[in-house]
C-alpha cells in the first residue's frame, strides 16, 4: 500500500489514515511490540507505510512504522528520566486466514535507518522471506515445528496469549537462525534449540555475562612458554 500522508495526530487517528489493508497487520505488530506494558507506557503509532505480498494462502506485510515511546519520569519504571523518543521499526507480519504471525521486528532510533536498509539486504537473499514465494501454509508449518519444540523441551506457557507471543518469537528466531546459518563459513548447523522461544534480549540478559566485555579483571602474570615435546 502506498504511504499515506503523515497523520495529523499520533495514536488512534493514525488508524484512520493508514491504508485499510494495513490496519490489521499494523494493529497486530503494535500489539506485539507493546506486549506486557502497562497502560501509559505503551508506544504509539505515528506513521506507517508498507507493502504487501501475496504468499500461498496468505499475505506477507512488510511495514515501516514510526513509533513514539512515551516519556518516562517514574523512577520505579526507568532509572533515568527518558524524554519522548521516536523509533523507526520494520515489522514483517504474515497473515494467513486471519491468523497473524510476527516474523521480524527491528527497531532503532530514527537515524539508524541506513542499518535497517542493510538488514533489508540481509534478508534479500534468504528464500524464506523474499524473492521466492513463501512455502504454502508457512504459518501452519511453523505452528507444527513450534509444537514439536514445546513437546521436545517440555515447555508450558501461562496463557494462550503467552503461547501466541512465544510462537511469534520462535518464528522470528527461526528466521534469525537461518540468517546465521547462511553467513557461517564453518560446518555448524543452526536451528531449533531449547532457547528458541527466547528473544535475543532475554537470552542475552539471562544466560550471558556482560561483565566480560567491560572490565579486564585482575591483571595476572603471563604463563611461561611451553617447551619440549
Amino acid at each position, binding site marked *: 500500500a502506498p504511504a499515506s500522508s503523515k497523520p495529523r495526530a499520533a495514536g488512534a487517528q493514525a488508524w484512520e489514515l493508514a491504508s485499510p489493508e494495513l490496519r490489521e497487520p499494523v494493529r497486530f505488530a503494535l500489539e506485539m511490540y507493546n506486549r506486557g506494558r502497562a497502560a501509559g507506557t505503551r508506544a504509539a503509532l505515528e506513521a506507517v507505510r508498507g507493502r504487501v505480498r501475496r504468499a500461498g494462502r496468505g499475505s506477507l506485510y512488510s511495514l515501516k512504522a514510526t513509533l513514539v515511546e512515551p516519556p518516562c519520569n517514574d523512577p520505579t519504571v526507568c532509572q533515568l528520566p527518558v524524554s519522548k523518543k521516536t523509533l523507526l521499526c520494520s515489522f514483517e507480519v504474515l497473515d494467513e486466514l486471519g491468523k497473524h504471525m510476527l516474523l521480524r521486528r527491528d527497531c532503532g532510533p530514527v537515524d539508524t535507518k541506513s542499518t535497517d536498509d542493510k538488514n533489508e539486504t540481509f534478508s534479500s537473499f534468504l528464500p524464506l522471506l523474499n524473492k521466492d514465494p513463501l512455502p504454502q501454509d508457512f504459518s501452519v508449518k511453523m505452528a507444527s515445528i513450534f509444537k514439536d519444540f514445546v513437546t521436545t523441551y517440555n515447555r508450558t506457557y501461562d496463557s494462550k496469549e503467552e503461547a501466541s507471543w512465544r510462537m511469534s518469537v520462535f518464528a522470528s*528466531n527461526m528466521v534469525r537462525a537461518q540468517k*546465521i546459518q547462511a553467513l557461517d563459513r564453518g560446518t555448524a*548447523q543452526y536451528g531449533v534449540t531449547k532457547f528458541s522461544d527466547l528473544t*535475543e534480549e532475554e537470552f542475552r540478559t*539471562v544466560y*550471558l555475562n556482560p561483565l566480560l566485555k567491560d572490565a579486564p579483571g*585482575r*591483571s595476572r602474570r603471563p604463563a611461561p612458554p611451553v617447551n619440549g615435546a
Partner: protein
Amino acid sequence: PPPRWDWRDKGAVTDVKDQGMCGSCWAFSVTGNVEGQWFLRRGTLLSLSEQELLDCDKTDKACLGGLPSNAYSAIRNLGGLETEDDYSYRGRLQTCSFSAEKAKVYINDSVELSKNEQKLAAWLAKNGPISVAINAFGMQFYRHGISHPLRPLCSPWLIDHAVLLVGYGNRSATPFWAIKNSWGTDWGEEGYYYLHRGSGACGVNIMASSAVID
C-alpha cells in the same frame, strides 16, 4: 603441538553442567579449569562447586556476571574450593556458606595465556583444559558442527560468555576447538560447542587463562 588432543579421553573433564537461568558461566569456566588442573597435579577428578563462587566471590556479581581472573583470586583468598556435592549448585545468589575445612582443592596462582592459538593448543596439550571467554554470537541456535561466523558478526571485542577449552583437532580439514559449555547436555553436541581454530574466531584467544597448582 600434537595434531589433536582431547582431555575428555584422559579423564580430566567432569560431565557437562547446567548454569540454569543465571549468568554464571564465569564460575563454570573456572571450576572446569581447576578440575583439570587438580586432576593433572593430584590424579583425582573432582567436580567442584560453582555455587561457592556465586556466594563467596564478592568481587564478582554471581548471576549478573563475573570474571575468571577475579574468581581465581577469590579461590585463593577463600582458601580453596569445595566439591559440588558439599556445596551444591542453586543457580542464584545465596549467603556464603563456605567452610575452609570442607575445601578439597586449592590453587596457588593463575596465569594469563598466549593469544596465539598455536601456543594455546600446545599449552592445552601439556597443561590441561583452558578457561576462555568468547562472543556467544549464534550460540542461541547452535545445534552441531564447527561454528565459524563472519568476524564482524562475532567480534572478538564483544566477549560475553566464558567456557572451557578441553581439546582441539580437525574434522575433514576444518580445525576446531572442542569447548565445554555450561548449558546442559541438551544443547549443542551433548553440551559441547565446536568453534573454528586458528582464526581468532569470536575472540576465543583473547581471555585464555588457567589456575596454577604447585
